[in-house]
């Protein structure tokens, strides 16, 4: 009786964290003013949200149903590596293809480097 309560509690904690971070992702992508801030919201909190939901799924299948699924661990590691990487790729390609940051930006450290590189070519 208490074992099932502990398992259900762990699953509910992890999945609730994941769902909250997924909602924060949607809120950030709607409200934030700029590609770069939006990619920051997407890459960080979407990663944490899907990590929470996958960890809850893994714990539920392992402790309540009784079979450990190693592919879920592999998916967690893969998403943890590649999701911030795709955020970085999109931010870089947006800057090089000429998307302007918002007017609230105070310091643009990459502007001089890109201008010098274009002048050298």
């Amino acid at each position, binding site marked *: 009786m208490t074992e099932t309560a502990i398992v259900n509690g762990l699953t509910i904690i992890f999945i609730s964290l994941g*769902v909250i971070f997924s909602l924060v992702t*949607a809120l950030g992508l709607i409200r934030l003013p700029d590609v770069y801030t939006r990619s920051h919201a*997407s890459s960080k909190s*979407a990663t944490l949200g*899907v990590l929470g939901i996958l960890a809850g799924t893994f714990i539920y299948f392992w402790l309540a149903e009784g079979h450990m*699924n190693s592919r879920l661990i592999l*998916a967690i590691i893969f*998403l943890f590596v*590649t999701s911030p990487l795709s955020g970085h790729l999109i931010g870089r390609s947006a800057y090089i293809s000429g998307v302007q940051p918002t007017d609230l930006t105070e310091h643009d450290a990459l502007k001089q480097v890109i201008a010098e590189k274009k002048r050298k070519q």
Partner: protein
Amino acid sequence: MILFFWISLILVSLSVIGLLIRLIKGPSVPDRVVALDAIGISLVSIVALLSLIFETEFFLEVILLMSILAFIGTAAFAKFLERGEVFDRNSDR
């Protein structure tokens, strides 16, 4: 427990609807690519919640495949936006 899984599935679907708004009205192309990447990652969690609801573990094969496809699609879009083509021969940058 099933009720909790249904509620979290509905909330994740609501967040996917919010991402669809950004996908439709995004002012620039990288906005849309960011929204598409986030939709792909949210679909992974929807598949995990569906496998919890139906109490089967056969859906879990799909999770790894969908995460790999989302990453490859985002990387291809980024390369296309940066250089204007996906596959090219000279790699000086």
